[in-house]
């Protein structure tokens, strides 16, 4: 699988997990894309982030250490975090 295909596939997985976790409360119109921000656009709560981390762990196993990656970031970086950065991190762990 080439990198573009893998990236697109990972975006679909992450996007699906977010919709599953937030459910009907999702207050974001339009597709979840690379530029979509977890905080400003999706308004993900801290405990929803935990659920996302758990789901990613289940999906990708220990090769993707999302919790460690997030915990290495400063608050400003977390607030500005995009879905694309998350996808790129996952792809980099798996390539």
């Amino acid at each position, binding site marked *: 699988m080439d990198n573009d295909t893998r990236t697109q596939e990972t975006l679909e997985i992450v996007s699906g997990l977010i919709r599953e976790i937030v459910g009907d409360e999702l207050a974001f119109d339009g597709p979840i894309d690379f530029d979509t921000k977890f905080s400003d656009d999706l308004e993900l709560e801290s405990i929803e982030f935990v659920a996302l981390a758990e789901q990613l762990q289940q999906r990708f196993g220990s090769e993707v250490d999302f*919790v460690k990656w997030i915990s290495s970031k400063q*608050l400003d970086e977390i607030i500005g975090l995009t879905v694309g950065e998350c996808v790129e991190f996952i792809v980099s762990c798996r390539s």
Partner: protein
Amino acid sequence: MSFVTANDVRFHVQVLGNGPGPLVVMLHGLLFGNLASWYFTTAPTLAHDHQVLLYDLRGHGRSQRVPRGYGVASMTRDLEALLVDRAGKLVLVGHSHGASVAMRFTIDHPERVERLVVVEAPSPPYRTLELEQFHSSSPEHILKAMPVAVQRMLEGADRRADKFLRSIAFLLHETSLMNELADEPEFTDTELRAISCPVLCMYGTTSSCAPMGVRLVRSLPRAQLTMLDGGHYLHLDRPTELTRSVTEFVHA
């Protein structure tokens, strides 16, 4: 998502790591806290060498919203029930009310606790007047009372702010939490002296809880006090320094 029923309450539990060291249990504080307080800060570092167990206290995060049982004694029963299948030594790490629960557990089960980290445990009885003012506050006032970092996370986020305020409003108005806090007994010197394991006490220089840190190092047989520049919410104000100090102490 992992849920465990213990002491008749359904708890949201997360486990990180699988290291050889003793099990680390991390407890968050009341109202603004949930297991994410530790999950995205200090827990991942400890998880290199330990299995780390985190849970949302009753009524908080994704744990069951129950009308009562928010005092230290009741929450200590929760911790006992959650650990019922876990033999062996423990390291307990608690913030605020969670630190009081960790202290109470250590007093009741001194043989179980190898090391204890007390971050910003308040000095009960809680100042009743402050609590009453808080109790009757509008959502806007409650927001202003929150740590700046939390306020920033909520800025312009209607869904998240609404959900957050609803969870706090539930605890303040639909549970006995405030009354239980007002009735919370002080730890006696005899009880504190019974905590014989090494204890790391961490307090913020600008926190109103800081005098409790001074009392703890005077009363606990084997305690050290570390002050960090910051307020009550050290995991938000000083996450890097907090994690470093806790990790060094746990591995000392």
